[in-house]
């Protein structure tokens, strides 16, 4: 059926329908347990264990961005992201926050990355 739609619709309309469908997917997934009118509660032990899920998700997104390149662990020191992450970590240890570590990391990253091409 999608093939017929693709054939009948101009490209932008096909793209727009695809995108609006994706928007529905966002709403469905973010509202999954908000939908029911009854009070849905997972079993308490599971609910408690799921409390680490947001931290785990953030770490799961961040760790490969820092440690990997082209799908493999970084195997060289000539990689700006490693010293940048170390600088951000050191800054955080000194003064916890968000903006400080970000700027410290960028201060190391930008010269190495743009200047030296690491």
């Amino acid at each position, binding site marked *: 059926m999608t093939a017929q739609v693709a054939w009948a619709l101009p490209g932008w309309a096909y793209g727009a329908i695809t995108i609006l469908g994706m928007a529905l997917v966002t709403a469905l997934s973010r509202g999954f347990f908000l939908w029911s009118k009854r009070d849905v509660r997972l079993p308490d032990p599971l609910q408690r264990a799921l409390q680490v899920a947001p931290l785990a998700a953030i770490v799961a997104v961040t760790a490969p961005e820092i440690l990997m390149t082209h799908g493999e662990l970084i195997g060289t020191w000539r990689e700006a992201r490693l010293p940048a992450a170390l600088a951000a970590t050191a800054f955080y240890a000194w003064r916890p926050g968000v903006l*400080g570590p970000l700027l410290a990391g960028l201060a190391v990253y930008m010269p190495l990355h743009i200047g030296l091409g690491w």
Partner: protein
Amino acid sequence: MHLHDLSRDRHFRHGASDMLAFGPGLAAWGLVTGVAMTQSGLGVGLSILMSVTVYAGSAQLASLPLLASGAPMWVIWASAFCVNLRFVIFSSQWRVHLGHLPRRRRLVLGYLLADLNLVVFQKAWPKRDVHETGQARYAAGGAVAVWTVWQVSSLAGILLSSLVPLSWGLGFAGTLSMLGIAYSLLTDRTAWIAAIVSAAAAVAAFALPLKLNILVAIAAAVAASVVMAKTGRPAERAS
């Protein structure tokens, strides 16, 4: 409650200002996502439509190669759902805090709540299995803040895509600000172990398609936390 009244609410303002600390990192990420959408050949109009309606950065980025290669709609929707599966888990957490709202309002608010919203929310309201007054307004403040920063920066990326050099690695700014928030969540032993397990699993499972390594990492961290709850001392778990 209308947005106008909300904007004077203490909890709403608090939620918004807590989130604005992440503004710079979030903006860098939005900018990069905007550039990536336009440069994938999506066009300015569809890129704006995607940013405004889909409003899920990782799913947007995952869909771009599929859209460019003319993949069938259902494949794109299914992959967006896979990338968004973590939100299904998050929504069970939001249910605790937003369950009292009328259904339509909690669905609208839920649609607007991204990863960062829950993470920052959990820092502000450490008692995670109880509902407290002001939580919905706090969440709404954070939602408006993230939405505004993300959409403005994403729009800038879409419109200025030819001027923003991706080779500068601006996306790394987003990663660095995520690093800061991850550190701030490492408050007890359970969190440390969950983070270490998650990082290892995310790297090990990186080859999986559709960013499913993120889901694997969450599952591994949750499993580790179950084991810790069974073996650890109750006093420590309660923290």
